[in-house]
C-alpha cells in the first residue's frame, strides 16, 4: 500500500522523464525509417561507391553498440568542433540505429516481393519508378510492418541509454528520485513498469499485425 502512495507522489516527475523518452524514440523512428528506406535502396544500387557507403552506414549502425555511437556523438565529435546538446546527440545516435535496423527489415521486405510482380509490371510497360513505388514498395513495406514495429519498441527501450549522457529521460528521472531517499528498489520497479506499459501493448499490436499479415499472405 505504501509503495502505491509513494509511487503516486513520484509519478509527475516520472511522467516528464517518460515524455522525454517517448520524444527521443519518436524522433528516432520518424527520421530513422525514411533514412532506412533510402539506405535499403542504396544497398542494392548498381554504383559500387553508393553501395559501399550505404553498407558501411548500415553495418556500423547495427554492429556497434548504440552506447558507443552515442558517446562518439556526444564526446567524440566536439574534437572536430561539432558539439551537440545531450538530447540532440541521443536522437542522432538512435536515428542511426533505427535507420540501420529498419533498412535491413525493409530490404528483406522488398526482396520478398515475388519476381512475377516485377515481370507483370514490366510486361505492362510501367516505368521503373512506377514499378518500384506503386507495385514493389507497398507490398514490401506491408510485409515489413511487424519487423518495423519491433524496431520501434527496441528504440523506445534504447532511449534508456541516453541516461549515460545525462538526458532527463525516464531512467534519469528515476535515478534522481532514488538518490533523494535511496528507495532504489521501488523507483526502478516503477521505471520498469513504465517501460513495460508502453512496450507490452506495442508488442501485442505487433503480434496482431503479424497474424493478420500471415492470414492474408
Amino acid at each position, binding site marked *: 500500500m505504501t509503495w502505491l502512495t509513494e509511487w503516486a507522489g513520484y509519478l509527475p516527475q516520472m511522467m516528464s522523464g517518460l515524455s522525454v523518452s517517448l520524444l527521443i524514440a519518436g524522433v528516432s523512428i520518424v527520421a530513422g525509417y525514411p533514412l532506412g528506406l533510402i539506405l535499403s535502396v542504396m544497398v542494392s544500387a548498381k554504383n559500387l561507391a553508393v553501395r559501399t557507403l550505404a553498407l558501411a552506414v548500415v553495418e556500423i549502425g547495427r554492429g556497434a553498440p548504440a552506447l558507443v555511437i552515442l558517446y562518439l556523438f556526444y564526446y567524440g565529435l566536439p574534437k572536430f568542433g561539432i558539439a551537440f546538446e545531450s538530447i540532440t546527440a541521443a536522437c542522432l545516435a538512435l536515428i542511426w540505429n533505427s535507420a540501420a535496423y529498419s533498412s535491413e527489415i525493409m530490404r528483406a521486405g522488398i526482396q520478398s516481393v515475388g519476381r512475377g510482380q516485377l515481370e*507483370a509490371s514490366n510486361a505492362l510497360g510501367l516505368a521503373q519508378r512506377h514499378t518500384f513505388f506503386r507495385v514493389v514498395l507497398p507490398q514490401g513495406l506491408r510485409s515489413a510492418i511487424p519487423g518495423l514495429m519491433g524496431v520501434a519498441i527496441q528504440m523506445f527501450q534504447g532511449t534508456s541509454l541516453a541516461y549515460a549522457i545525462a538526458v532527463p529521460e525516464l531512467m534519469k528521472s528515476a535515478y534522481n528520485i532514488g538518490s533523494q531517499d535511496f528507495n532504489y528498489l521501488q523507483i526502478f520497479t516503477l521505471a520498469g513498469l513504465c517501460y513495460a506499459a508502453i512496450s507490452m501493448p506495442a508488442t501485442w499490436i505487433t503480434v496482431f499485425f503479424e497474424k493478420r499479415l500471415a492470414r492474408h499472405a
Partner: protein
Amino acid sequence: MTLSEIADGKLAPRLGIKLDNISKRYGDNTVLDDVSLHVEPGTVTALIGPSGAGKSTFLRCINLLERPDSGTIQVDQHTIEPGKDVNSRDLAALRRTVGMVFQSFNLFPHMSALKNISFPQQKVLGRSKDEADERSMQLLERVGLKEKAHQHPGRCSGGQQQRIAIARALALDPSIMLFDEPTSALDPEVGLEVLAVMRELAADGMTMIVVTHEMQFARDVSDTLVVMADCRIIEQGDPRAIMSDPQEARTRRFLRAVLER
C-alpha cells in the same frame, strides 16, 4: 460489342510479329537455338512442346522480359535487335503493343481488381482516372466479373484472377497478346472460363501466341500449331494436320504423351 472493340471506339491495329534467329543462352546452357517465327496479323498461334523445350523463354523474349543474345524482333514499324542496346522508347513501344498473361496471373495483390486494370492505363497511356475506370468496367463486364471490381485479387478464385489479368492486359489496347500456360494453374473446369474468354478474343481477330497444354484449344482455336523441343521449333503448320499426322518422331512422341494423359 466484342472484346477488342471496347477501346474508345477505335480498334487497335492488327499487327503481326516477325521473330528471326532468336538465340538465348544461360551461361553455357543454350535455351533457344536460332529460332524464327512469323505470325500473321489476326491469327492464333499455339505453342506446344515438352517441359524445358524453351517455350516460356521464347515467349518472354518477344516482349523482352528475357533478353535474347541475338536475333531480331519486328513488330509494326519497330525492329528491335536485342543483342545490341535497346533504347527505352523502342522498349516502351514494344511493351505497349504486346500484352502478356502469365500462368500465375501476377495481379497486384494490394490493388482492387478495378485498380489493377486502371492503374496501368493511367501510367502507361496517360488516361484520366475516369476514362481508365470506365474502360476497366467495360472489360470487367465483358469477362463477366463486373461485381468483382472492388474486390482484391485475394478474394477472387484463380479463374476469376486470370480473367482480370486478361482484362488488365487488354486495357492497354495491345495489338498482340501472349499467353504462357494461362490455364495450367487452374482446375480444368475453371480453366474453361478462361479459355472461353480467349476464344472470344481470337474470334475478334486478336493476334495471339499461346503456350498451352490444352490440345483441344490448340486444335479448335489456333490457326498455326508450333511444336518446340530441345531449344528449337521442330515442326509447324496446320494444327489438325500435325495432330493427326506429325512429321517428326519427336512430335509424335510428345503428342502421344499428352493425349494419353
